């Protein structure tokens, strides 16, 4: 990019504050036609606020945004849409009970004599899917699709709306490597077609692979917009955190792995989900479970924790067999689980940080049937300190914390129960770099203190550096074992892909 074409979108000294806290301060960014523009920063840096300003969800307090030289009406979702700004959100905003066609055209239905023209819509839906190179059934309610598939639908929806700027907020956070690859290919295609993309991601590999320029925010302020060729990984991280950090520290020199078997899973089967799963986790050991999305990892986690029933097999903790499908008995046996979806399953967002943290230990805090508030405050305080949760105070709503801090609260809630086996399902998804490093440190410390840890993650560097051993799942079965630390990403992927497909990758 030597000659600079006129930008399609110019953001001029835009500011926005929430209750005295500046979420955005004097931000200036321009986006060129046909560029993939990366947007990085820790959670709470102001990325989401900028997106909301661009899409008209909230009006900025000062500054202006122009599209092709025309000022955009602030705080008007419709105007932003008409100007060609589309967004794919982190959490899918689809209508789960409507089918694919309805979802694609909702708000922009094709009509004929005032009636819906379903045939025309179906035709266009097929055409756009073909262009994006995927096929999904037109008449299945979206609820039955995986998160990855729902995201594809959202992309197709954006494509249908002739957008100029597509904003993608952590689009790959919940995708497997293969799906990510498809999606990245898609972004490249969009760029070729002249659509600009504002790409928000914590996954630096993607930023380097995809983006032309990267803008970094820190604490609501613009740090820099830099062409990607002029940056390396450490410099980019440095810009984000304001210091150079060693994100993925090499794994500890193997701590003495005790021989005490904490958890033993034998021949676990659940029809349509997974089958013949057997492994052991020892005290002081981190066992990683790798695999593609849909390989059955989350389902396995849920079965072990007693959320779902399973058809056959046995789970033992310290030699005692667990009751099937009972969360209570899993908790009593000393299992804890940090679920995949922290907003809906991990936390009770409208409740305070303190209430969330003490939820699992209420029985301990009760005396003569009454809650002991002082003791609760004490426990909460020590947990927050231990986990370095950044919150003004414990009475804050959990909803107001950043993603990383929310995840620390979920983790803390379970650490309070002093678990024997901790199951983590995608523990650092959508979490910023610094919080991720802290969460990793915590997991290691706790495991060294004698806990057994089972971690399901799609983040390959995380899987490899954090785990002592790795089991890779493929289509509901264990496809192979690898040593943590020495395994390569290629080895994991080779096991993770179904046979036949592995050759091609």
């Amino acid at each position, binding site marked *: 990019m030597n000659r600079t074409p006129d930008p399609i979108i110019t953001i001029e000294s835009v500011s926005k504050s929430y209750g005295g806290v500046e979420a955005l301060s004097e931000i200036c960014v321009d986006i060129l036609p046909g560029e993939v523009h990366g947007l990085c920063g820790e959670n709470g840096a102001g*990325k989401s606020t900028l997106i909301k300003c661009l899409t008209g969800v909230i009006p900025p307090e000062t500054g202006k945004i122009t599209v092709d030289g025309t000022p955009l009406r602030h705080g008007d979702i419709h105007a932003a849409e008409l100007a060609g700004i589309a967004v794919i959100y982190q959490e899918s905003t689809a209508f789960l009970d409507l089918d694919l066609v309805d979802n694609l055209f909702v708000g922009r239905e094709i009509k004929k004599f005032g009636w819906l023209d379903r045939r025309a819509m179906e035709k266009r839906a097929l055409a756009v899917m073909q262009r994006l190179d995927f096929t999904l059934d037109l008449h299945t309610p979206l609820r039955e699709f995986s998160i990855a598939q729902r995201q594809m639908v959202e992309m197709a929806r954006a494509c249908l709306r002739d957008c100029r700027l597509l904003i993608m907020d952590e689009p790959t956070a919940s995708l497997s490597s293969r799906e990510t690859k498809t999606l990245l290919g898609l972004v490249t295609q969009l760029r070729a077609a002249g659509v600009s993309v504002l790409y928000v991601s914590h996954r630096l590999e993607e930023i380097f692979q995809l983006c032309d320029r990267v803008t970094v925010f820190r604490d609501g302020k613009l740090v820099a917009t830099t062409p990607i060729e002029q940056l390396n990984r450490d410099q980019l991280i440095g810009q984000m955190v304001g210091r150079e950090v060693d994100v993925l520290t090499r794994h500890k020199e193997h701590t003495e792995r005790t021989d005490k078997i904490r958890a033993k899973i034998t021949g676990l089967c659940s029809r349509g989900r997974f089958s013949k799963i057997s492994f052991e986790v020892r005290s002081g050991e981190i066992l990683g479970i790798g695999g593609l999305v849909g390989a059955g990892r989350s389902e396995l986690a849920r079965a072990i924790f007693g959320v779902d029933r399973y058809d056959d097999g046995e789970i033992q903790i310290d030699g005692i067999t667990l009751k099937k499908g009972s*969360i209570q008995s899993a908790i009593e046996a000393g299992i804890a689980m940090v679920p995949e979806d922290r907003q809906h*399953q991990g*936390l009770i967002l*409208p409740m305070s940080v303190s209430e969330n943290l003490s939820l699992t230990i209420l029985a301990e805090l009760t005396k003569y049937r009454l809650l002991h508030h002082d003791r609760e405050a004490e426990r909460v305080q020590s947990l927050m300190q231990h986990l370095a949760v950044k919150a003004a105070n414990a009475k804050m709503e959990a909803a*107001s914390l950043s993603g990383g801090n929310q995840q620390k609260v979920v983790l803390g809630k379970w650490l309070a129960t002093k678990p024997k086996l901790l199951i983590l399902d995608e523990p650092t998804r959508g979490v910023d770099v610094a919080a991720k490093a802290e969460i990793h440190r915590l997991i290691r410390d706790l495991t060294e203190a004698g806990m057994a840890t089972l971690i399901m993650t799609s983040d390959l560097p995380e899987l490899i550096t954090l785990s002592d051993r790795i089991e890779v799942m493929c289509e509901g079965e264990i496809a192979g074992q690898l040593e943590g630390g020495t395994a390569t990403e290629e080895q994991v992927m080779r096991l993770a892909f179904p046979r036949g497909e592995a050759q091609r990758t």
Partner: protein
Amino acid sequence: MKYRREASLLILVAVLSLLATLFDGSFVRDNTLDILINSIPTMIISCGVMLVIITGEIDISVGSLLGLLAAILALLCSTVSPGLGIHPYLAIPIVLTIGTLIGLGTGCLVVYGRVPSIIATLGLLIALDGAQDWLMGGGDIKHFPQQLRNLGTGTKLPINLIFTILVVVATGLLCRKTALGRRIYAVGSNRSAARLAGISEAKIKLFVFALTGLLTAMAATLWVAKLGNVSTSTGAGLELKVVTCVVVGGIAIRGGRGRLLGVVLAVILITMIRTVLNFMDLGSEAVKWQRAIEGVMILVAVTSDHFSQRQQSGGSS
């Protein structure tokens, strides 16, 4: 502001008192006790229904349930045929047990039968009402032993009022100071997160429905004791009044949010509206006014709730 709802209810109570005082300088002195005593059944039942609504369910069968339980108590105690003339101290525990069991049954329908609570309790509302009519056989039941009447009219102390205050205090303690209370809110805020935290949604819901049944039975007892008369229309419409008070009191209809204090104030306010309108002597017009005012208040309460939630959802990134 955290106590916005409570503050505005208090202001409304104050304004209404002032208005009434303009009509008659001694209104507050003469009527406060009356208003409190009139609010007793609604107050007691609201404590239960509030908890049900916090868990994300609803119970609209309490009006019929009160009617049925009042009829049962009347038949057991009444000294005149068809009454059985059983001693109240034996009859009351029977009625309390029946109330709890019916509440528990409602809970089972919702929890295990997976019937949406609005449908289940709507069915019960009608069925229990029918049962009441059948039991009563048309006529009013009167003539109760003095031990029972004492609970309602009191000798010197308003026993029924003291009892109600105890119920309110106990409910407050349950909400704020017990693990169970915390879990009730947790289930209503986010049932899947609550479940994953090892909380049994079934147990919590069975508890709140059963408690509502028990509280309704208590309210029925005090009702019979005070009025000394049970008819087929006893309890009719009470469920709507209770739900009104709970919603006006700031309990989110979707569950998870709201405080007892607001509900208590709402019960007092709504009972007061009735008294003040009667007092202003608008004659038969008063009844019409009252319904309209109650309706508008629900609308205001529900919409303000909606707006304050919208404000919050615009929160930070």
